[in-house]
C-alpha cells in the first residue's frame, strides 16, 4: 500500500482521483515493482477510467499502463489482428457494452417482435458476444473481463411487463444468465456483474442523461472510481496480491467484552442484539474459511480463559478446528503474527489483521506495513460490512483444493503437535496411518494436475509447466500416461498432491516426463509408495524399462538423487541434466514401507 495514496479510499470522490493522478502519476512518480497492461474497450465513451484505474493500481503498490480503444470500436479492435489492442499486448482486457447498443431495435420497440423472436434474439446476441470474446482469448494471452448488461428499470408495459413472455426486462436478464453460463468454466473469460454493481450504488445514480447525450458517457464520473475499484479485484490476484489469511483478535472482535474481566456468561455473543452482531461477524469469517481463507488467532489473554469460550460457549460459531494458527499469550502481537506466518509458511503480505484496539492496529501498521491491517469502525455492527468490502480475498480460480485449504492447514497444526509428541521420525510416519490413492487423469482432477505442474518447484524432477489443455491432450493420447496421487492420514486429507506423467519411447521403454509432489507431502516417503504402484502397473502392461530425467533448477535440489534412491542407474550426466534408467524387474518393492495403497 502506497502512503502517498492514503487519502484515496473506497468512497473517495472523483475529483480526489483526478488530483492525485495529476499530482503523482502524470509527473511519473511511479511504482516500479510490477506493471500490468490493461486494455479497455467499450461501445460508449470511457471518461475518467484512466485516472481512476491508475490511482487504484498505484495505491496497491503496482503500476499500470492503460490502453483505451477508440470510441465505439471494440469490434474492430478485437476482430482486426493488426489492431492497436493486440500491439499493446494487454494482460487484462475489460469490455463494457451497453444494452441499447447491443439490443438496438429490440430495446426500443421490443413488443413489435414476437416472444419467440425476442427469445432467439437473446441467443443470437449471446453467441455473437461469446464468439467475439473467444476470438480475443485465442489471439491474446490476457484475462478478459466483460461487464454484463444493466437490466433496465423501465418497461413500456409498466406493471404488465412480467405478464409478457420474454419481455424487455426478461431478455436482458436472460442475456446475462446465458453469458454467465457460457463462461462458467473458463479461467480466461470472466463476466463482471455490472447490473449487481449498479444496484449497490443505485441505478438512478448510475446514469446521467445529460452526459449520455453530450458525450455518450454511460458511467457517471462519481461511479467510475467505484467501478475501477471492482476492476482492481481482478488485477490483484493476477499479481499474487490477494490475501490468504485473516488474523483475529478475540476480545471485542470475535465477541463483545473482555473475557479476563467479564464473566463467561456476560460476554456479548448470542441471540441478543449486541450478541448477534458478533455471531454474524463470526459467520462471515466462517464463510470465508469455507472458500479457503485461513483463520488464525492473535490475542493477548490467558490461554485457558480463551479456550473456555472457544470450546464451551454455546453461541461460538468459530471452533478450535477452524484456526490454522493459534497464538493466545501475553507476547506482542507483532511477534505473534510473524510466528503464525512462519508456521503456516505464508508471507506477511498475504495476511489481514483484525483487531478492535487502535493502538494494536497502529503498531501493526508501523512494524509490518505489508500486513493489511483492517480499519475497524468503533461500532461492532459495522464489522461485517467492513469485511465484506475487502476485495483482497478474490482469486481468479477456485479449485476443490482451494476450498479445503483452511481445513488442511488446521490438520497440519494437529500434525505439528503430534510430531512434537513422538520421539522419532519412524514412529511419527507410522503413527500418521497414511493412505494413498492413485488415479489416471480425468476431467475432475485435470485442473488440479495442471495447477500443480505450474506451482511445484522443490519436488519436481523436470519442472515442466503445463496448462489444463496440455494435460487433457496427454490423457487422451496413447503416447502418454498421466497419474495423480491423493494422500490422507489420520488427521485428514492432503488432497491431490502428486503427479507422474509418462511418455512412450518404445513398446518396452517409457520416459518419466514429469514427477512431482506438493511440498506439504514431502518427507513422508509418499513418492516411494507412489512409484512402486506405477512400476507394478507398468510391468503388467509389458513395459520393462523406465528412463528418468533430472533437470536441475535453483529450487529442485532436494530431488537430485531421487532416482538413485529408487534404484535407477545413472546413464548420462551433464550440468544441464542427469539421465537415469531402471530395469523394472530389479525394482525393490520393500522401500514403500508402511503406506497403504488404495486401488
Amino acid at each position, binding site marked *: 500500500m502506497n502512503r502517498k495514496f492514503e487519502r484515496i479510499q473506497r468512497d473517495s470522490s472523483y475529483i480526489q482521483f*483526478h488530483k492525485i493522478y495529476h499530482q503523482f502519476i502524470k509527473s511519473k512518480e511511479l511504482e516500479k515493482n510490477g506493471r500490468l497492461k490493461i486494455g479497455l474497450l467499450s461501445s460508449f465513451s470511457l471518461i475518467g477510467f484512466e485516472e481512476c484505474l491508475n490511482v487504484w493500481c498505484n495505491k496497491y503498490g503496482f503500476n499500470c499502463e492503460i490502453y483505451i480503444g477508440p470510441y465505439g470500436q471494440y469490434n474492430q479492435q478485437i476482430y482486426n489482428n493488426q489492431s492497436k489492442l493486440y500491439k499493446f499486448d494487454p494482460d487484462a482486457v475489460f469490455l463494457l457494452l451497453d444494452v441499447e447498443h447491443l439490443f438496438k431495435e429490440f430495446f426500443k420497440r421490443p413488443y413489435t417482435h414476437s416472444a419467440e423472436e425476442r427469445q432467439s434474439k437473446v441467443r443470437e446476441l449471446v453467441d455473437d458476444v461469446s464468439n467475439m470474446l473467444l476470438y480475443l482469448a485465442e489471439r491474446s494471452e490476457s484475462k478478459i473481463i466483460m461487464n454484463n448488461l444493466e437490466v433496465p428499470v423501465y418497461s413500456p408495459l409498466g406493471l404488465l411487463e412480467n405478464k409478457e413472455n420474454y419481455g424487455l426486462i426478461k431478455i436482458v436478464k436472460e442475456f446475462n444468465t446465458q453469458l454467465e453460463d457460457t463462461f462458467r468454466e473458463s479461467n480466461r473469460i470472466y463476466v463482471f456483474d455490472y447490473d449487481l454493481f449498479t444496484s449497490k450504488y443505485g441505478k438512478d445514480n448510475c446514469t446521467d442523461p445529460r*452526459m449520455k447525450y*453530450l*458525450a455518450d*458517457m454511460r458511467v457517471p*464520473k462519481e461511479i467510475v472510481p467505484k467501478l475501477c475499484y471492482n476492476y482492481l479485484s481482478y488485477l490483484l490476484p493476477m499479481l499474487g496480491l490477494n490475501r490468504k489469511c485473516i488474523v483475529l483478535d478475540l476480545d471485542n472482535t470475535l465477541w463483545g467484552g473482555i473475557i479476563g474481566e467479564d464473566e463467561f456468561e456476560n460476554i456479548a455473543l448470542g441471540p441478543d442484539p449486541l450478541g448477534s452482531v458478533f455471531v454474524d461477524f463470526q459467520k462471515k469469517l466462517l464463510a470465508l474459511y469455507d472458500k479457503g481463507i485461513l483463520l488464525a488467532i492473535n490475542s493477548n489473554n490467558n490461554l485457558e480463559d480463551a479456550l473456555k469460550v472457544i470450546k464451551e460457549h454455546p453461541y461460538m460459531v468459530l471452533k478450535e478446528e477452524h484456526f490454522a494458527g493459534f497464538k493466545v499469550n501475553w507476547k506482542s502481537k507483532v511477534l505473534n503474527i510473524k510466528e503464525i506466518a512462519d508456521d503456516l509458511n505464508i508471507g506477511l503480505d498475504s495476511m489481514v489483521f483484525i483487531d478492535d484496539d487502535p493502538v494494536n492496529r497502529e503498531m501493526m501498521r508501523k512494524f509490518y506495513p505489508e500486513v493489511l491491517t483492517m480499519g475497524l469502525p468503533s461500532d461492532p455492527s459495522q464489522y461485517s460490512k467492513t469485511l465484506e468490502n475487502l476485495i483482497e480475498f478474490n482469486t481468479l480460480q477456485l479449485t476443490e483444493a482451494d476450498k479445503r485449504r483452511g481445513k488442511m492447514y488446521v490438520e497440519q497444526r494437529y500434525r505439528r503437535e503430534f510430531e512434537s509428541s513422538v520421539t522419532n521420525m519412524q514412529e511419527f510416519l507410522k503413527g500418521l496411518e497414511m493412505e494413498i490413492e492413485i488415479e489416471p487423469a480425468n476431467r475432475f482432477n485435470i485442473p488440479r494436475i495442471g495447477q500443480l505442474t505450474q506451482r511445484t518447484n522443490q519436488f519436481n524432477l523436470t519442472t515442466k509447466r503445463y496448462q489444463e489443455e496440455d494435460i487433457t491432450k496427454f490423457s487422451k493420447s496413447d503416447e502418454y500416461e498421466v497419474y495423480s496421487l491423493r494422500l490422507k492420514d489420520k488427521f485428514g486429507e492432503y488432497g491431490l498432491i502428486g503427479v507422474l506423467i509418462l511418455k512412450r519411447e518404445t513398446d518396452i521403454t517409457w520416459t518419466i516426463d514429469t514427477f512431482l509432489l506438493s511440498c506439504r507431502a514431502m518427507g513422508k516417503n509418499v513418492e516411494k509408495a507412489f512409484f512402486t504402484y506405477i512400476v507394478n502397473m507398468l510391468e503388467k502392461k509389458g513395459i520393462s524399462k523406465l528412463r528418468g530425467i533430472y533437470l536441475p533448477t535453483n529450487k529442485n535440489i532436494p530431488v537430485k538423487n531421487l532416482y538413485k534412491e529408487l534404484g535407477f542407474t545413472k546413464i548420462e550426466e551433464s550440468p544441464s541434466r542427469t539421465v537415469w534408467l531402471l530395469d523394472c524387474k530389479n525394482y525393490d518393492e520393500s522401500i514403500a514401507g508402511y503406506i497403504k495403497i488404495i486401488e
Partner: protein
Amino acid sequence: MIKLNKGLKKIVSEVLQIPVPQISSETSQDNTESWTSVVNLLLISEIEERFNVEFDIDELIKIKKLGDIEVLLAKRGVSL
C-alpha cells in the same frame, strides 16, 4: 462574495491543473490546452456538485468559456 468566486477558481484549477492566478472569465477551451471536451464534462459536473446546482443540457452545449459558467451560476442564484 469573493470567497465563492475563489471557490469556482479553485475547482477550475483542480480539474484543469492550472494555477488560480491564470484563471479568469476569459479562460476557455480555445486558450486552455487541458480543457478538452472530455475534461469539460468533468469540470461541469464538479461545479454542479460543489454549488449544488444542475444545468440544463441546452445550457451545457453553449458553454465556451468560464464566463459562461459564471452567468449560469448567477442565474441559479449563486452570487460570485
